[in-house]
């Protein structure tokens, strides 16, 4: 269909040099992998990293993947890791309470150890109790 429109435009251009502008064809980028329709992957991690607890709750209520995996520079992250890295303890504890997996490791260290290193002691204890 696009070719037909385009060729007709060229024909009209060559014939009378009066070119009728053709609407530019816009190729929509294919959607990325989504856990749930309507919620792009990474949205929950981004919200958790920003410390938006209400946003996290809302996304989870809308069906966001609690353990979604996002990749950045070859590193796989999840919402809990992002919240932990950004020091958003409330969000992280909420995610753990909601059943987020805390068994991920970073360079061989558990999230609990990283939480202790970040002085997020209550999060560390929560992770330990969930172990």
């Amino acid at each position, binding site marked *: 269909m696009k070719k037909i429109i*385009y060729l007709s*435009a060229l024909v009209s251009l060559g014939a009378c040099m009066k070119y009728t502008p053709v609407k530019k064809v816009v190729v929509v980028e294919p959607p990325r992998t989504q856990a749930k329709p309507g919620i792009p992957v990474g949205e929950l991690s981004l919200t958790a990293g920003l410390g938006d607890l209400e946003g996290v709750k809302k996304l989870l209520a809308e069906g966001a993947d609690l353990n979604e995996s996002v990749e950045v520079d070859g590193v796989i992250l999840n919402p809990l890791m992002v919240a932990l890295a950004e020091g958003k303890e409330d969000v992280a504890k909420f995610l753990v309470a909601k059943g987020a997996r805390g068994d991920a490791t*970073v360079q061989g260290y558990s999230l609990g*150890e990283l939480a202790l290193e970040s002085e997020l002691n209550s999060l560390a204890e929560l992770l330990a109790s969930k172990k």
Partner: protein
Amino acid sequence: MRLNKIQLLSFVLITGGCTFTSSVEKGATKTQFRKPSSQESLDPEQTLQKHFFALRLLFDFEKSPLSLVAALVEKIDGVSNDNSQILEFIRIESALVSRLGKAVSRGTWKVLPRLTSQDFKTIAALAKRAHDLVDPQIGTLGWVGHSQPTITERWLFDDRTKWILNDLDSKDDVNPPPSDNRFRFYMFAYSILEEMQGLAPALAHKFYELASSNDEKKADFEKTVFSELPRPKGELARWEGYFTPVTREFLAKFVKDDTDAYWNGIAAENAIDWFNKNANTENSGARQSFLGIEPLREYYLKATDMHRASQVEYHRDKGFLSHLSSVFFVRTQIGSLKLELAHPGAGKFIYDLVRSYSMIALINTQFEKVYDYYASRGWGKGQELQTIVFKTDTKNEIRNLHLQTLSGVIQNLWASLAQFHTQTEFAYTDLTKVYVDDISRLTREMLENPFLQKETKGLSVEHIASLHLSLAELSATQTLMTKRITMVGDQVAVLTENLAQFRKEVLAELAATESRLSQQVAAVSQQVTGVSGQVAGVSDQVAGVSGQVNSVAEQNKDLRQRVEEIQTQLGKQSQELQNRIAENQNKLDGLMTDYKVESEEQIQKIKSELADDRDKFKGFLNQQALEQQIALTEQLALVAKTLKETRDELNFGAQVVQDELTAGAQQVGDELRAGARDLKKESLDFVRRVETRVLEEEMGRQNDQYNRQMEEYLVTVREQESSEYIDFVENISACAQMESRALTQSQFDNCFSFLKNRISGKNSGIDYPLRAVSPLNISFETLKSPLRNLSFWSEMGESWASTAGAKTSGKWPRRAKKFDKYRDLPNPQVFVEATRALSKLLRSHPKFATQVDENGWNEVKNQIARFRDLSRELRSVNSAPILAALDELKTHEASFFEELNSVYNQNPKIELRDALKKLKISPRTLFGQNVGEISSLRAYAESYAACLGLASVTFPNSRFFDPMFSFYWSDNRRPGTDAWLLGPAKNFSDPTIRRLNGETTQALRSYVQAQISAQPEEEFVFGLNDVGQDVEVSRLVVEKFRTEKAKIGEALNFLKTSSKSFLANARKK
């Protein structure tokens, strides 16, 4: 015939000079040199006045071209052979003035030092000769209105000058004078320069005072000049003492105390710039003067004209202006021209200056008006000026004054006219006419003045002036015609050049357009080739475009032909006009050749005809050029419009193709990227699943092993302790049963053996009593001595019995406080029971009851004291690992603060934050140091406790009496509680231990485990048997802990970095 401007000027002035000379000759013949043509003759004094009148003219003409001066000198030279010395002086001095004038005009005063000493000696000799010859008369002639001495007078009276010349004799002529004479040299040269330009700065006045004063004043002068004047910097500072404030400001602005820069010269452009920037100040607003602002113009008048009728005091104010007038736009033609070009109006100013009120008044010899004029402007009281001017109120003085004034006015007028023509060739028409008219009017007024007619009777001034007037009008007309012809020719040339340039630009534009179109077509073709499915459409498009390009090229060709036709037509017209101009010029030449016989009407006719021709030609040219320009512009606009439309359409088509390509490529790229992402995610998920499974399996295996070991251990311990307790209780029971009767020796031995072994821990695995007792050196032989230990053990046993019994009542007996220090001893229950049993055993033995003596009791008390001391010491020793860690911490802190102090000592003003920054230490690191270390220490302690708990599984014997236990145990875990009695193994249920086991101490536990496993069991005495080794293990643990902490920090940073990167990307999306 086209005359050079200089030639014209020379012609005018030389002709005037000839006339003048002829008049002089006429007068001379009447007296000495030739036969008088009339009966009236001049007296010798009058003749001499004429010579000096000529000399004055010549001096004033030194501002004219040197060739003209030379011509006049030549004319005068022929007047009298007797005055050859004067003429020689004039000639040579003119050359010198020319040389110095060149230096000034170039602004390179640096050349002055390059004048050799021979030059100055020549000057000195000439000045001496001129002085000898002229001085008697010049002293009375002098300058108008004042008795300022000449340079020769000052020079010759100056002993310093002679000294300088003598000093120069000893120096090399080639090289510049040495620095110690530089100042004198500059003074000398500067005074010559200033004086020869007719200017008298304060320096010259000082020289005059020096020359005319006695030795005392001379000394004062020198003192003032060389000592008392401010000397901020070098030679220039000494010079500043001679300058007026205005001059000092001028110099300060220009040279900025840079002596070399000052002597290297000041460019006229810099001076003009400075004047422009300082136009608002009264003394430096030269630019406003140029624009004709009255106050500053008056200032100039005051400086340039008034000083001739004033005394030396005015010279101070004049000094600065002398620089301006002489250096920048009077003396230097180059400077004047630049000034006029850069600042239109400067020539007007000169013109205004010449025709000023004061000058007119002087010409009319209306001295009263001059006085009033000056007085009204506050330049001095009229009476004073009158006194100044008429202070030598004799007939000769008045006559000389008038002669000087008249000659000066005539000379100034013509010189200004010539200079004006020279400098303002771009604005010569109307202004020249006004100028000529004005001069003519002034000259007529002067000639009609009865006073002047009377006083200048013998000089044929009227003849001179009329001739001057006619010549000037003629020459001005001629110049006007020549200039107009030249202007017409220039206009034709400019028009032709413009047309050629325009044609060239049109052709270049067409060529560029063709090139651009070709490039665009090529680009479009390439794009079309790349898109196979769209070749046909694009080819059609290209074909259409090519057709358009061809049509455009044809249009261009037509246009080019039209331009060539126009060019040819214009060339023909131009040629016709030039022919007409040539004809007119020939006519004019003919008229000029016979101008003496032709009437004024003919000249007017030619002028009017020429003017009409010029107007017609100008109108015709303008009309032609306008029409052609309009036509060409329309053509060009049409072509440009067509080209633009074509280009827009092509661009649009290319854009569509490119959008298609881009969209397709982007779609494919997105799909590939999405596939790659999915693949990578699946791979990573797979790897993670595999790793997780392996880890889970490994962890499960380890947990199973651990649980199995734990269960085995618990079974072993409980079995062991159970058997011990059973044995012990049985023995105690036996003892109790034997309380009322003496034990047999074998029973006693058995019981004691049990206790001994129980205490020593050899069999029971409990080593703490040994640790507690062995330092007392209470040997078992001593224990075997009932007489000496009965009382001790009895008391001890009772105490512990009470203590042990308190667990049921919940109160500590008062008596037991005495032994509170022992209550922390681990598992005292065993000790209590053992001692109690021993006491009863001993008491039950009748043999011992009677053997307690005083010495034995004292020995027991001593032992108790030693026990207390050693127990205290032991307790302190027990905390050695912590102390070691604290010592290490203190050492670390000490080194840190030592480093910090060193930074502070290097720079006491440094901020604490900067110091930390220099040490690459964050404030949090500093202030959180103790907190962190203590936290680490606590973590270490907890870890260590956990490790010991784990170690106790492997080595049950070492589980007791560890300092970490006392650290670890909280207050509610006092001895005797369930937790205590259950022993360390029970501690695994403790939540803290569990947390430590689970999270923080995972690595530490593994490490300690490895450490323990690495040592042979028999050599590894974990506990307090070897405090040193325990400390070493502690240190290793601490070190490992810190290493692990650092690694955890790295991992955390890695996670944070990844998170930041993710958040940044996510925000962008």
